Every structure is written in structure tokens, then in C-alpha cells.
């Protein structure tokens, strides 16, 4: 569906977590691929690549009625210019500053037609380090947002702490972002297949990590950011769902960082996939349900101030 679109990977993480190390690991790995890199911190460590674009993070608010719809103006310009080269990049990696909110980058891919025509957002990869993550999660709302927003988390510098600490950290990360793909690393040495081509914003791959879905509802919720997931066995009414999700995102889109769902619409052989970043939503029919498969509608919310009973009632109220 989107083979001709150049994948864009967003690399976030607070200062010192090891973003640049991971970036250089990706770029120097023997993969024969060609990447363009957009960086913001021309800093301590050099980035070793043919095409490095030094950008200022220019975030601006769209006047489109969505109060929280901010986009990266510099990315629109830079991606547009890169796409005018005949050279086909295998990917573009956007490194954000330490305190950056990933939402404006993601929303840029919902908002701009030219960006959408040539590129696709593949995934938000957040680098955290095992030694400092607990302190950052405690003192930095930005760090919590980066963990919550991620499709992939690279838990870096695992050689600096013991196994029990690592296990506790992973539990804490999952308390914020249940379904994130979590990889341990030392000096950013993850397998490239674990960070690239993740399809984190690909509707056809929405919730493909479903096996552990709804497993263990007892995660502690002492974080201000958490994930909630719901399932409904009966078919849904498309109009009811659209009305509910539309109103919900309008009202609570500021708090809901990301949401994703696979829905079983009444009388419809295909699955309906849905995703949103704050208020910016996107949806469409994807592959049909398999014969004999249980057609369960599932939805996940990651965000702040999520009210579990209210969201459950809302989702269940969409039954046909």
C-alpha cells in the first residue's frame, strides 16, 4: 500500500540517553541503505552520514480548529526539498531535541498533503537509559510523554544496572505504555530490524502486537500517563463509533496522546482500523477477518487522566 513512500523514523529521548549513539549505530551498520538525517543538536557528538540536515524545531499551531494541533513547519519544508531529489532514500531519520514532544512531528504527517504524498511516518523510537530513567520519569513530564508516545523504546546502557533494576524499569515503562516494543541495549546496539520499518502508524499493522492484549489488567497506575485497552465482542455500529470517538477526541484530545483500534463493524467483512495522535485521526478498512476468527473490536488509549469506566462505557455503547 505504501511501498513507494519513504519511511520516516523519529528518534526521541532526553539529553544523555544515547540518541546520537543509536543514530550512529544505525547509520554505520552494514546495511547498504541510504539515509537522510535531520538533526537538531549539532552538538557533542558528530553524526556520520552523507546527508545531514541541521534544522531548527519550528513548531506552530494549525488554525484548523484543533486546539492541540501543532506541526513542525521545518519538517514540511525539509521533507519537501528532500523529495525533489531523484536519489531514493531508504529512509529519513528525524532526531528531536531532548525535551521535544513527539506529537508535532507525528501530526505533521496527518496534516500536510505533500508530506503524505511522498513519505510515511514509520515509528517513534524513544531512547532511555537504564541509569537515569527513574529520575527522568519522576522529574520530567517530557520524558514521560516520550515514553508514552513511543512505538519502540530502546532501554540503553543496561550494563550500568543489575537485572532486578532492569526488570523493574521494564515494568514501569509498561505501566505507561503497555504495548510498546521494548529492546535492551548497551551503547545503542540494537538490531536494526527492531527500530526500522516498524509500521507504527500503518493502519494495516495497527495492533499487530495483539497477543498480549488485555492481559494483566492489574498494572499499577501510579504514573500520570497510562495506557488503557478495551475489547467488545459484539459488532459495532460505524455511526455510533464515529460519533463517540469524534466527541471524545474533541473533548479529551489534549490528554489522549495516541489511540489505536481494530473494529468489527456490523455486516462488514473487513476490519476497520483507526488511529489518532491527539485530535488528528485517521481510519480505513484493512484486511478482512479470517474465517473462524473471533471478531473482537479492540481499542487502546495512551494518555493522561484517562477514566477507565467512562471510556469502557463509551466504547461498549457503540455496539450495533
Amino acid at each position: 500500500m505504501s511501498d513507494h513512500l519513504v519511511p520516516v523514523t523519529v528518534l526521541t529521548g532526553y539529553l544523555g540517553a544515547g540518541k546520537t549513539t543509536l543514530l550512529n549505530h544505525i547509520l554505520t551498520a552494514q546495511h547498504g541503505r541510504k539515509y537522510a538525517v535531520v538533526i537538531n543538536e549539532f552538538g557533542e557528538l558528530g553524526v556520520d552520514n552523507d546527508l545531514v540536515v541541521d534544522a531548527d524545531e519550528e513548531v506552530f499551531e494549525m488554525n484548523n480548529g484543533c486546539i492541540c494541533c501543532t506541526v513542525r513547519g521545518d519538517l514540511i519544508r525539509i521533507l519537501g526539498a528532500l523529495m525533489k531529489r531523484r536519489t531514493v532514500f531508504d529512509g529519513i531519520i528525524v532526531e528531536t531535541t531532548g525535551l521535544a514532544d513527539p506529537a508535532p512531528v507525528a501530526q505533521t504527517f496527518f496534516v500536510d498533503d505533500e508530506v503524505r504524498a511522498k513519505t510515511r511516518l514509520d515509528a517513534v523510537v524513544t531512547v532511555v537509559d537504564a541509569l537515569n530513567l527513574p529520575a527522568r520519569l519522576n522529574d520530567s513530564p517530557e520524558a514521560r510523554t516520550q515514553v508514552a508516545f513511543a512505538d519502540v523504546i530502546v532501554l540503553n546502557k543496561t550494563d550500568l544496572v543489575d537485572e532486578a533494576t532492569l526488570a523493574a524499569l521494564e515494568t514501569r515503562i509498561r505501566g505507561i505504555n503497555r504495548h510498546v516494543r521494548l529492546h535492551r541495549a548497551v551503547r545503542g546496539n540494537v538490531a536494526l530490524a527492531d527500530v526500522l520499518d516498524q509500521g507504527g502508524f500503518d493502519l494495516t499493522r495497527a495492533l499487530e502486537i495483539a497477543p498480549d492484549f488485555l492481559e494483566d489488567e492489574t498494572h499499577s497506575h501510579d504514573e500520570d500517563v497510562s495506557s488503557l485497552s478495551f475489547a467488545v465482542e459484539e459488532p459495532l455500529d460505524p455511526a455510533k463509533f464515529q460519533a463517540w470517538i469524534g466527541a471524545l477526541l474533541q473533548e479529551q484530545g489534549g490528554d489522549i496522546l495516541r489511540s489505536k483500534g481494530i473494529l468489527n463493524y456490523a455486516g462488514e467483512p473487513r476490519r476497520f482500523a483507526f488511529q489518532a495522535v491527539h485530535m488528528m485521526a485517521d481510519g480505513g478498512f484493512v484486511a478482512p477477518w479470517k474465517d473462524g476468527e473471533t471478531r473482537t473490536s479492540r481499542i487502546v488509549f495512551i494518555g493522561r487522566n484517562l477514566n477507565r469506566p467512562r471510556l469502557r462505557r463509551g466504547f461498549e455503547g457503540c455496539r450495533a
Partner: protein
Amino acid sequence: MSEAVADPDHLLRTRGATHRLDGFVVGCAFSRDGSVAAFATGEGTVALTKVADPAWTEIVAHDGAILSLCADVAGSGFLTGGDDNTLRRVAADGAVSVIDKGRRWVEHVASFAGKQGLIASAAGKQVVLRDANDATIKTLEHDSTVSGLAFDAKGKRLAVSHYGGASLWFTGAKSETARRLAWKGSHIGVALHPDGEALVTAMQENELHGWRLSDGHNMRMSGYPQKTQSFAFSRNGRWLATGGAEAVVLWPFFGGGPMGKAPTELAGVPDAVAVRVAFHPQHDIVAAGFSDGTVLMSDVGTRRVLPVCGPGKQQGRGPGLGPGLGPGLGPAGGAVSALAFNPDGTRLAFGTQDGTVALIDLSTRP
């Protein structure tokens, strides 16, 4: 007109010279003396041809993509900006010289021809204003990245678009401050009314914004299905032609307009969007290039349409172009990405995303 519609490539076939470049055509321009046409690509190539007797030469002007192209302040040369962070001069004979090398992409370049020629180039948040001898007159600072440049008709002022609005600078060396025109949002291009009555910007939100310069009154021109990538005033300033819709949308800048006036829509192409527009330098004739590769000219007064080139092969149209255009050469495969009239309005140049470039002879013939 029916004959022309039956063969939308008639003008290209009978009066056109075409060439194929290996790259996305990012811009085209005619030299100030009108003798040379230039086409720049995303591969750093500039193709040059004499206007009177088309023959193409290609040179590599930049180490990377060319982002901007305009005529030099005088003579037969051109100025280019690239993502190799350089501002360069390309002479008619293909000689390339570096005017400046900085630390940012040179995304926009504009020149003014006159007794005192001026060159403006934008890199990041800065615009450098130079005289005709490339000496820096001053550096203009902005709070965010510059997205467009336009000189007024007399070279007295330079309009600069950026996030949050536009800045209007006097080009004289003594003036140090800009008039800041504020409007929330991302402004992605700028044009100045030829009599200095208004400054107009295109916006990320599929609309245009204008300021009446006499009193700063705001003008909003909205209703576009897509972003306006290209817009231009007519020579007399009565009309503003804009892309971003299926039809070419013209806003009246007379009789109190554009406020409270409905725009005029010139002929368009179904299922395509006007992406490049250019006004004829003398007459009220608009040329428009579309996302399907179609190029049309329209007379504003009579609404008559003259097709220049039919849709490109990307839209499923066969490659057949008939004899005379060379093997495998589609008319305009891919969206039109560059469009310009020459200074006396006797030629039209255009280029497309897939590298087709063309020069059309519009002059009257015996």
C-alpha cells in the same frame, strides 16, 4: 478552440522545444535580457538554452539539490541557491561561480533589475541583501525560517514571509528595521502588489492572507482544497492569480476587493489541481500548470482558453506524442513544477516533476 481541445498538445508540438532532464525541475527563469532560458533540477543540474534558437546544454551547478533559481540582476546569467549551502551565479555559457557559502540551505533567491541591481537570498532565518557587485548591503534577521522573498516593482522594498506573518524591509542601506505584519500561522510564500498596495502570503492552512499596506487591514482569501504553492499579480495589479484549486482562482484587487468579493475562476482541469501560475508580463493572460501535467493559458477578459500541453503520461495517457519530439519523450509526465513567461511575453517555459522541460514560442508569426 474545439480544434485545440481535440489536440491539447498542438501548441507544444508546433511551437515547442522540449528536452528531458534527469531530475525534478524545481524552477525555470529567463535572463533579464531575454536571450537565455534556464531550468534547475533537484539533482543540482541547470539546463540552459538560447531562446531564439533552442539548443540545450546541461551543467552541474550545485553539489546537491538546487532549491531556488532566478535571473541575475542584468544580462544573460542566473542565480541559484542549493542545499549545499551555496548561492551561485550561472553564466549563459555555463560557467558557475560561488557568491557565498554559508551553513544553511539557500532556499530562496530573488533579484531586482534596475539602475541599482539587488540580490536577496534566504538561508535559515537570515536574508542577505547584496548589490549588483555581490557586496553585502545588509543582513536581515527574522524570528523563524524564511519561506519566501519578493521585491517590489521599484526595488525599494523587500517582502519576506515566515512563521507568524511577513516582514517588509526597505532595501536602502540606512534603514535597519522592518515593518512586521503579523498573522498567526505558517506563511509559506509571498507576493507584493505591483503598486505596493498589498502584500499577500500563502498559508499552510490552504488559504491566502493579505495586508493592505496603507492601513494594515487584514484580507483573508480562503476556500482552497489544497495549499497554494504559486500565486502572482497581474502587471497592472488588478488581479491575483492563485493555484491550489481545480480552477485557477483570481482575486480582484480593485473596486474594494478582494474583501467581500467573490473570486473569479478560470478554466481548470477535472481531478487535477493548479500548482503553478504565471501572469503574462503585459496582458491579462494567466498561464497555469496542473498536477496532471496539463499547461493552459487563459485570457482573463474573454475567458478563452489556449491549451499548451495535455496531461502527462502519469495520468494514464499514452506516451504517444507523434513525430518531432524524440523517442520516449512524454509531453509533461508528472506534475508541472516550474512555469515562467519571458520578459516581453513572447515565450513560456515550463518544467515538470519528472524532468520534462519545454520552451513555447508565443510570438506572432507572418
